[in-house]
C-alpha cells in the first residue's frame, strides 16, 4: 500500500484491478466457465503423467501441462465448433505435441553437446557421465532418443497407448479412424524397435 501512495504522489497510476477481477471470460460464458475447472481436474494429472514420461522431469511436465490448459484458456473452444465435441482428444494431442517438441529440442541439444565433446576428443566426460548415470537413466535416455526420432504421430500414438488410452480415445486424440488404430500401433511399434536397433544395435535390446 505504501508504494501506491508514493506512486500516486509521483503522478503515476498505481497498478489497479481490472473491472472483472476474478471473473475472466474463461471458456465462454456461464456454464462453460465452470467446465474449464471440470476439464482441468479431470485431465491434469493424466496429462502430467504422460508428459513426465516424455520429458523425464516433473517440473517440466507440469509446466507443459499448464501450457496445454493455457491454450485452452486463451482460445476456448466454442460449443459446436472446432474440437469442442472432442475436447479430451484435443487436450491429449496438444499435450503430446508439446511433449514431443520439448523432447526433440532436448535431443537436438544433447546431440550438439555430444558432437562437440567428440570433436574435442573428450572421453573424460563420457566416463564421468557413465559413473553418474544409473542404468535406469541410461535406458530412459535411449527410449526418449528413439521417441524423438520417430514420426511425431507414431510417438504420440505409443505414448498415449502406454498411458492407457482406449482405441476410441486414441482415434479422437490423433484424428484417425478407430478401425485403423490396431494397424497403426503395429506399425509404430515396429518403427520404434527398428529405430532402437539402428541407434543402439542389438545390445540396446534389454
Amino acid at each position: 500500500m505504501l508504494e501506491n501512495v508514493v506512486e500516486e504522489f509521483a503522478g503515476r497510476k498505481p497498478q489497479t484491478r481490472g473491472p472483472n477481477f476474478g471473473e475472466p471470460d474463461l471458456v465462454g460464458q456461464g456454464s462453460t466457465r465452470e467446465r474449464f475447472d471440470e476439464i482441468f481436474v479431470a485431465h491434469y494429472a493424466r496429462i502430467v503423467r504422460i508428459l513426465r514420461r516424455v520429458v523425464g522431469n516433473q517440473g517440466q511436465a507440469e509446466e507443459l501441462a499448464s501450457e496445454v490448459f493455457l491454450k485452452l484458456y486463451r482460445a476456448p473452444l466454442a460449443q459446436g465448433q472446432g474440437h469442442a465435441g472432442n475436447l479430451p482428444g484435443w487436450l491429449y494431442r496438444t499435450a503430446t505435441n508439446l511433449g514431443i517438441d520439448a523432447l526433440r529440442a532436448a535431443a537436438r541439444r544433447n546431440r550438439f553437446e555430444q558432437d562437440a565433446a567428440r570433436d574435442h576428443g573428450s572421453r573424460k566426460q563420457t566416463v564421468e557421465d557413465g559413473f553418474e548415470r544409473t542404468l535406469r537413466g541410461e535406458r530412459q535416455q535411449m527410449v526418449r532418443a528413439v521417441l524423438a526420432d520417430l514420426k511425431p504421430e507414431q510417438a504420440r500414438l505409443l505414448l498415449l497407448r502406454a498411458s492407457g488410452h482406449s482405441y476410441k480415445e486414441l482415434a479422437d486424440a490423433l484424428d484417425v479412424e478407430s478401425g485403423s488404430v490396431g494397424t497403426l500401433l503395429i506399425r509404430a511399434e515396429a518403427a520404434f524397435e527398428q529405430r532402437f536397433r539402428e541407434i543402439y544395435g542389438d545390445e540396446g535390446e534389454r
Partner: protein
Amino acid sequence: MNCMSENQLRAYHDGEVHAAERPELEAHLASCALCEKRYHEIAAAAERVQGQLLSLDAPDAQSSVDPQVALARFKATHETGVERDSFFSRLFARRWRPAWVTAVAATIILCSLAFPSGRSLAQRFLATLRVEKVQPVRLDFSALDGNRPLQEMLRQMVSDKVVVTADEKPQPAETATDASQLAGFPVHLLGARADAPKFTVEGQHAFHMTVDRSRLQDIFDQAGRPDLMLPATVDGAQVSVNVPRSIRVEYGDCPHAHPPANAPGTPNAPPTAGAWSNCVALVEAPSPTVNVPADLNIQQLAEIGFQLSGMNATQARELGQTIDWKSTLVLPMPRFAGTYSQVQVDGRQATLINGSGAPGRRGPDYVLIWVKNGIIYGLVGRGDSSNAVALANSLS
C-alpha cells in the same frame, strides 16, 4: 473365416474387439497356425515396446499430483492476471516498492537459495521472520533494469512457482471503527490533523513458493553473476509469506488511483506545483510474516543479494554482519530519495527519507517509517519533513 487382419489381431490382443466378435476370433486363432503365430509376434512386440515406454516412469512416479492444487495455481497465475500483476509485478519491477514488499521479495529470492534439501518441509522446524525495526540500505539494481530477459525470467518464475492463497481487494471504510474491524487491528489517527480522514483497508496477500534452484541459477546467470553459486541441493523447499490487511488513512486532498468520474485531473497527470500540499497519507501495516526453515542462513543469502546489487563480497559481508536478519526490514532507498536520517518517533527509532529536491522530480517530499508493537507505520507527504516527526508523534 478368412485369416484375421493385423488390425483385428492387434485389437483382439488389446481387448478392443466387440464382444460379439470375440468367440469367432478366438475359435479362428485356435485353429489357424498362421494367425496364431502372427498374433504372438504382435503381442510380443506390443509388450516389449510397452515395457520400454513404461520404463520412462520415474521411480517416484507414484508421487501424486493434486489437480485441485494445480488448478488453484493455474487460476492464480492466469485467471487473475490483472491482479497478480498489481501485486506480484511489484516484487520485481523497477519502480520503488514498499518496504515490506521489497523485503518479502528479497526474502523469497534470498531464502530460496540455500535450503538444505533431502528433508521435507514438514520435517523441519520453521523460523518466522517478523519486522521489528527498519534499516535503510542503498541498493542499486539499476544495472538490471534494462535486462528484459531477466525481468521476464523473474516474472515467469513467479508465475510458475508462486501459489497464491490469499489475494484480497482493497476496501473503503467509512469510519475508523469500520476500518479497525475490517483490518483486525485498531487504527491510529494523527491527533495533529483536525480534518476527517478517508480510510482504505488493503487486502491480505499470502502465498508460498517452491524453490527451483536451477531457475534461480539461470536468473543469476542472466543477471551477469554466474559467479554467485547456489548450494547444490535447494530444490523443492518452500517459503511462505503472509502480508496481513493494512489500513491507509488519508488526510487532505491526495492523489488517488480512483478519482470520482467528475474529478479534475487524472492520477497519471504530473502534479502541478502546490498540488496535494495538504495531503498526508498514513499507512499502518502489521508486519508480514515469512516462514522459512529454521536452519536457514539468512545472512549468507542476503550477502548474495547484496552482491547482485553490485557490492563486492567484502562490502556485502560487512553490511550483512551489521543486520539482525530475523527482525529487520531492509529498506532499499527509493529513487526519489535524496537523504535519509534516523529520528525518534514515540520513543522509537524511525527512518526519515527526504526527497532529493531535484527540479522536476516527482514523488513525495518525505516518507517516515517506524515500527511499534508489530505494526509498521509509514507517513508520506509533501512539504517540510520536520513536520513529519511532529505529525507522527501526534499519533493516537
